[in-house]
């Protein structure tokens, strides 16, 4: 029972891999497709990595999708106004960081529940994105070519079956972010303290941990990651509109939850989150290739989360 609880998600993941490999032998288990998957999931990977930071403390952030959209809009508007790409990217990241800090202030300084605070800022960020963009998609000549080319480029890995294989830039960013979050959560006193807050906030406070400050910082980092995810998205589609990040929030939370089924006490772990993102990405990729309707896909992904998290609850003590 414990085995199923701990490794059920991994077993399910392997089963999904086997299923798609059998159904799509020519296209699914290829290096090219896998690099494609890493690129398709890179935005979600970055946002989910940021989400993991707050979820370690037992909090969560519903505003990441809106923050991602807003960051994309801000960068696009600046570029449309003739600002250099680096300045646009930097300002967009700062906007994400400040938005996250605002969430953190509401949660830790004012004391509003994260669910309510970030639900409110979710609508606020989204509203601001609509207002500053006039509700329009910013695309075409307004976006410098270099910005859009970044997502298409990558590091050449060689040839495979006569086709050039690149490690996409977006995948590289995702890997760097995962590594950074892994170091932060697993190797530093900061991460240790966040896990202590998630385990028992009062005990952490009485052990001299600056709970309020750490929550503020953690929410800021989540906002920063959301903005990064939004910029990656904007680069990939070479445009920005005020709703393009909206799908990220639910998927990021789902990925972290899928990951928690793999840890000892159900606490979020960054590497488990990575597996969660890949599970969602592989499902999306495989089902699309099998031409499964996207609405059916939604039903399947939702069912998968219920099964994985539900299996985790079975065998746990209940009263």
């Amino acid at each position, binding site marked *: 029972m414990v085995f199923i609880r701990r490794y059920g998600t991994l077993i399910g993941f392997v089963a999904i891999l086997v299923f798609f490999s059998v159904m799509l032998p020519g296209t699914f288990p290829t290096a090219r497709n896998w690099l494609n998957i890493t690129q398709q999931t890179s935005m979600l990977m970055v946002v989910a990595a940021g989400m993991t930071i707050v979820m370690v403390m037992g909090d969560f952030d519903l505003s990441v999708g809106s923050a991602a959209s807003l960051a994309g809009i801000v960068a696009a508007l600046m570029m449309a106004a003739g600002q250099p790409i680096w300045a646009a990217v930097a300002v967009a990241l700062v906007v994400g960081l400040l938005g996250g800090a605002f969430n953190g202030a509401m949660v830790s300084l004012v004391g509003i529940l994260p669910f309510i605070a970030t639900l409110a800022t979710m609508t606020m960020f989204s509203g601001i994105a609509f207002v500053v963009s006039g509700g329009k998609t910013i695309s075409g000549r307004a976006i410098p070519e270099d910005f859009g080319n970044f997502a298409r480029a990558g590091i050449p890995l060689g040839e495979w079956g006569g086709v050039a294989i690149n490690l996409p830039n977006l995948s590289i960013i995702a890997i760097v972010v995962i590594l950074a979050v892994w170091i932060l959560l*697993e*190797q*530093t*006193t*900061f*991460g*240790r*303290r966040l*896990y*202590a807050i998630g*385990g*028992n906030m*009062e*005990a*952490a*406070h*009485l*052990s*001299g*941990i*600056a709970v309020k400050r750490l929550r503020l910082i953690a929410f800021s980092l989540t906002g920063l990651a959301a903005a990064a995810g939004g910029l990656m998205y904007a680069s990939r589609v070479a445009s920005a509109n005020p709703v393009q990040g909206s799908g990220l929030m639910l998927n990021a939370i789902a990925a972290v939850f899928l990951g928690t089924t793999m840890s000892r*006490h159900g*606490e979020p772990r960054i590497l488990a989150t990575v597996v969660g993102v890949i599970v969602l990405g592989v499902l999306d990729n495989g089902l699309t290739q099998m031409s499964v309707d996207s609405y059916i896909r939604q039903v399947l992904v939702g069912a998968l989360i219920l099964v994985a998290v539900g299996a985790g609850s079975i065998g746990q003590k209940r009263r």
Partner: protein
Amino acid sequence: MAPSAPLLSATSVTKAYAGIPALSGANLVVAPGEIHALMGENGAGKSTLIKILAGVVSPDTADIKINGTPVSIESTKSAYRLGLRFIHQEFNVVPTLSVAENIFMGRRYPRRAGIFVDWADLNRQAQRALDRLSIDHIDPRQNLGTLGLGDQMLVRISAALLDDAKLYVMDEPTAALTADESQRLFRVLREIRASGSSVLYVSHRLDEVMTLCDKATVLRDGRSIDSGALTNITHDDLVALMIGRKVEEAYPKAVAAPRDTTVFAAANLVTPGLKPTSFSLREGEILGIAGLSGSGQSELIRAIFGDARMTSGTMALGNAPYVPFSPATAWQSGVAYVPRERRAEGLVMRRPIYENITLAHLKSQSRAGTWLTPNREKRFAAELGANMRLKAVGPGQDVIELSGGNQQKVVFAKAVAGDPRLLLLEEPTRGVDVGAKFDIYSIIRERTAKGAGVILVSSDLPELIGLCDRIAIMRDGAITTVVDAAGLREDDLVNLCYGRTTGMVAQ
């Protein structure tokens, strides 16, 4: 039904959890009209036995008879029908409901016309239940959540006394009660005994058991070791039976007298719950804080620990002024704290032992204050643990898997890990068994030998008298008296707590 049959007899009770025996042949026989103590260290099998009687846990084998009739207790309902009542610390209460509603929980509310709840009658009956314990300061209509822990316990006890039963099983009922509340409870228990019903009484407080109970059954490692009348046994023999070895003293002796240097001083300390309070503490001294629950003990400790808004007053550690803005500054200044509730305030239950110990010392237990060094932390924790006889698989074991006494040792390990100059302790041995208690007292003595000052808040009066050099009595948020602990008697201390001045007070 033979007239001489015991009220309850549970024989050859065995139970194993995942192959590990919790009970291996325990016997318990309670006669009608007696107060019977169930004794044993944490992990001896007391709670498993009680849970079996309560119908919460089903035994592997058991021969249970009530008044000589074999019964099987399949559920909490059948335990109730058999006339068994259970009062334990983790009793289900709903803080947002009224006292009366909590008393009647699980029972049928009195009705009007069969439909509407007769609130007046409900409150009247609840008041009667409270009256039985002579509780006049609790209004049955007030929300349970507005009461202190001790008062909540009294409400639970009154609820169990609402209808007559054969056997009342009480698990550490006095843990959160003041001395006076305990005395009231004991009076009711003696009434119950006089009426022919019985009480099965579980407590780590031996003095209570010796004065209150008629008989005792001692469990050790899942077996009943001995059973008999308490008049034939001494305090020390009982302890020896429980832990399987002789202990010379309940409280380890101080190795040296307190030094003359002052380690901590507070002058006119005022917080929202604390009236102007001044006192000082010497190196190596243990200052006890006694008083009725809610007299400002916690507020005083929290003020010193930087977890309260200080409106005025000054403090000094050694010769330097001490201004704690937060628990973080307190730890950094060498002030350590063992909180009242170890699960809620002391430990991160689902994290390993070593992480809990180093949590307050991560700056020194890491590289450059930033990079974790788990191996070094584990070695550090293992050394500390061995020193205080912590029973665990290893420093990587999760705290949740440890027994209460060992969990408390982890809290102490965290407190002493930074060599504190001032140690703040609140109820340091609550729910801790005899063997672990002695270990914890030894840890405290070890710190005073090194020159640390200790402030000890406790509702366990023998503990205060046995350990402290001086005892400060708090009433209504201020220290009213400070007395020398040497030669002090328990009833003197009780009188002091109530502000009575009837003779006897130590000079």
